[in-house]
């Protein structure tokens, strides 16, 4: 990190980046000195602090993982009830730590029960079902005598209960717990586990293309989040010595959501800032509490529309201007490229067109390079087999349209197989069939003798097939380097826990993954965009980063979906070299392209599709000489060879 920092030439005010949060933490510890330290006041601070832990939990699942578990307060409540009930019946044996653990376990279980079915259907369902749970739990508790019904369970009324920690000591411990939770979430997010969350949040297709199991990762995000929220329940119970149905409600869930949106999800500190603001207002400005809903509702609305990235995004921009934060990107006309551009559509096509045409200079992300020597990239994943990628009799229809009709295709290791055809000829559908985004209606896809078409999408990458997309799919808020690392992490393995907790093997593996990703990016001439946010990169560079990601898997086969579109001549040259180098290294390349001359110049064999059927299969020379292909495919009356 410091290496990069010096490479990018920092100085000046960057120390403030660490100083400001450090100062805030110190202030947090001495709040009782500033705002009053009566028992009552301390209790209020501690209540807000325990809520902040829920905010941290929500941020992990929602801000990073993209799982809208809005009703996380239900998990909090269930954890809290669990902790307080356990204490009610064993008042002597349970301290703060025990409460947190009990809360964590019960909360975790509760979260999974809600998450499991809702996940099958989609994020939106999770949001509403969890919100309903947040409504149902207090409603049920209100009538259930076992949990004290409406009045709840007061611990101070339990005989034999006397908490060992209290006063300012307790406050300091609680603050430390909140910081610990925050540190944990930071460590999680910057570990292999966190990378998977962000990849999944960005795009399920992106995630599965680098071997991430979507369902399991979503569950993990919800699980970790629930465990943390349940633990927050334990903290709450210990500090307030009380829990009732009114302690958590749907409105409370909305408040937390407001905190996240206002502060800015997708960052570690954003939700804390937003949560502190919202919860602080709610807690300490009680005179107008009945109007809180209006204030928060309006705030939430305004932020959702105008500042969806929250305050933190604004602060970051301010920080950049003041020289505190490193600049996120340079050389793009008009500043940040529109986020929509990388997610497809006409806007993407337009953005692609406007990429600067000249090969070098600022704005392309590519330093002017002489012809480079690319290192070998022999396959690592799927290297055990020596079979080819075989598509046999593939057929797929959508409604009345047969997109792919009885297509045979073989990609041999060490060969470049070009796939051409006009729009709508079925090329991309075929690619998506191999990637298992669609199922075959008939036919087979296999590597050697191992069938692929009955496996889930993430198995494709794990079998050694990497791919790129027509519109580069990158994690836009991550740097170029951080985009490539998750691909390496598919084969450089350790336990998630080791990576998160920075155990020796975890640190080693994290470093190795980073180093390998770095190396590949540097080889492709991208060393000066390493630390730039992907959203600020021009189209051609994004394409190359995506290519680097595919290479980083060290796959046995690479599927490239129209990679040449929008590339400058220099970038095109690099693309061709990369393809040839992959083939030389023993990787099988399937290159879908519109740019027929390019395909003909580097492919070993070419397949031409037309309306889903195979029109031609053979060598480029044979294609050049074949008049019927030319006439059907291009509607030409002459072979593809131009006169003169």
């Amino acid at each position: 990190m410091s290496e990069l920092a010096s490479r990018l030439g920092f100085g000046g005010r960057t120390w403030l980046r660490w100083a400001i949060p450090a100062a805030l933490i110190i202030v947090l510890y001495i709040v009782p000195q500033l705002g009053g330290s009566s028992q009552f006041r301390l209790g209020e601070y501690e209540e807000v602090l325990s809520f902040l832990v829920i905010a941290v939990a929500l941020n992990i699942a929602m801000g990073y993982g993209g799982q809208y578990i809005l009703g996380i307060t239900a998990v909090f409540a269930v954890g809290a009830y669990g902790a307080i009930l356990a204490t009610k019946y064993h008042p002597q044996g349970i301290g703060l730590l025990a409460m947190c653990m009990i809360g964590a376990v019960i909360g975790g279980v509760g979260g999974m029960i809600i998450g499991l079915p809702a996940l099958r259907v989609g994020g939106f369902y999770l949001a509403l079902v969890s919100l309903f749970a947040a409504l149902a739990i207090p409603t049920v508790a209100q009538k259930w005598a076992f949990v004290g019904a409406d009045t709840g369970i007061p611990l101070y009324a339990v005989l034999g209960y006397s908490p060992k920690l209290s006063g300012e000591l307790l406050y300091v411990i609680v603050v430390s717990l909140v910081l610990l939770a925050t540190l944990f979430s930071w460590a999680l997010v910057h570990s292999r586990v966190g990378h998977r969350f962000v990849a999944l949040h960005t795009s399920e297709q992106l995630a599965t293309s680098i071997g991430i199991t979507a369902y399991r990762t979503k569950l993990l995000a919800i699980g970790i989040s629930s465990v943390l929220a349940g633990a927050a329940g334990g903290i709450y119970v210990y500090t307030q010595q009380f829990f009732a149905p009114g302690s958590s409600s749907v409105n409370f869930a909305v408040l937390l959501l407001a905190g996240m949106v206002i502060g800015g999800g997708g960052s570690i500190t954003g939700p804390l800032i937003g949560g502190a603001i919202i919860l602080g207002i709610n807690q300490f400005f009680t005179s107008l509490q009945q109007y809180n809903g209006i204030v928060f509702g309006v705030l939430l609305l305004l932020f959702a529309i105008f500042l969806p990235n929250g305050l933190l995004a604004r602060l970051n921009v301010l920080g950049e201007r003041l020289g505190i934060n490193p600049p996120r990107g340079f050389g793009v006309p008009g500043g940040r490229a529109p986020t929509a551009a990388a997610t497809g559509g006409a806007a993407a096509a337009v953005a692609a067109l406007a990429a600067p045409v000249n090969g070098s200079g600022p704005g392309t992300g590519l330093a002017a390079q002489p012809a480079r020597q690319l290192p070998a990239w022999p396959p690592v994943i799927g290297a055990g087999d020596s079979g080819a990628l075989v598509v046999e009799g593939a057929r797929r229809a959508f409604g009345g349209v047969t997109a792919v009709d009885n297509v045979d295709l073989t990609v041999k290791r060490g060969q470049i197989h070009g796939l051409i055809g006009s729009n709508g000829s079925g090329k991309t559908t075929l690619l998506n069939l191999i990637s298992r985004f669609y199922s075959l209606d008939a036919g087979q896809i296999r590597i050697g003798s191992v069938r692929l078409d009955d496996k889930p999408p993430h198995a494709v990458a794990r079998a050694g097939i990497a791919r790129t997309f027509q519109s580069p799919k990158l994690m836009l808020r991550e740097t170029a380097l951080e985009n490539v690392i998750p691909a390496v992490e598919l084969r450089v393995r350790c336990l998630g826990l080791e990576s998160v907790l920075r155990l020796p093997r975890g640190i080693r593996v994290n470093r190795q993954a980073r180093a390998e990703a770095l190396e590949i990016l540097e080889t492709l001439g991208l060393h000066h965009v390493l630390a730039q946010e992907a959203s600020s990169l021009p189209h051609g560079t994004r394409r190359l980063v995506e290519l680097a990601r595919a290479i980083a898997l060290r796959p046995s086969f690479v599927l490239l979906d129209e990679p040449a579109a929008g590339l400058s001549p220099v970038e095109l040259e690099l693309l061709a070299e990369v393809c040839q180098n992959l083939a030389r290294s023993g990787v099988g390349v399937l290159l879908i392209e519109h740019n027929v001359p390019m395909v003909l110049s580097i492919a070993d064999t070419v397949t031409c599709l037309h309306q889903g059927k195979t029109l031609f299969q053979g060598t480029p020379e044979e294609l050049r000489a074949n008049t019927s292909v030319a006439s059907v495919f291009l509607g030409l009356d002459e072979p593809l060879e131009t006169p003169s």
Partner: protein
Amino acid sequence: MAVTLFLTALVAGLAVGSVYGLIALSYTVLFNSTSIFNIAQGDLMMAGVLVSYFCLDRWHLPQIVALLAIIAVVVALSLIEERVAVRPFLRKPGIGLGWFIATLAFSLVIETVASNIYGQNPVVPIPGALGDGTFSVAGVHVATKFILAFVVMIVVMVALEIFYRRTWLGTAMRGVAEDREVAALRGIDALRISRLAFVIAGLVTALAAFVVAPIVSSDVTVGLTYGLKGFIALAIGGFGSLRGCVLGGLLLGVAEQMFDLYVTSNYEILAALILVLIVLAVRPSGLFGTRAVREV
């Protein structure tokens, strides 16, 4: 005896289910032309109930005036919501759940305003349109307000089906939901259509409020509860289908009453939660589901 208990529960279930069905219908109207699920619909209904309370309980106005007042207020709120919370997102490419957060925020504001207007007054019953008598069917007493709710729900469903199949506007709405750009190219103003969808949804919600007010009395806190249960009715019946709304709502209502009768009373809300989890696990698209919600 057991049969009577069962029948009573069934009838009560169908009655409450009609409420859920009406809410689900108003969701579907919006959803079918904007692919947006408006969580504030439940609170809009409750705002209508509040209007009903004022008109009928406080000012003793005739029922028809109350109905018109409800329609006016709810449709107005609907249009405000469209302008303020939804339109900014309809213009953007459909990514993210920003619109959901916006509608949630809007519902929070409505709920708070309503709470403040109503204040600390106790919950009181609201007189029904057909009086507060009961009917006797097969030994079971059915309150007329329940029958009215059920009938109105069926009428609304049929009216909506006719609207979508037989009218220009209804067909255009279905087209806009499918492909806004092609619709625009054919001269169909997608934004105007969305606004109209909000008006129609507001009308349905207003009708719901009118028949629901005597059933829920003047409890202004139940907006989100009904809103969420309306969602569950949709999840069971399947998004995008009018018949799904009705069936989902009725099923939910009956399930709650049966749970109350045969498993344990007081905790019917659990019935809804369990039912939705089962449906999502077994048949995620619902009974008649057709389309997907604008996704994350």
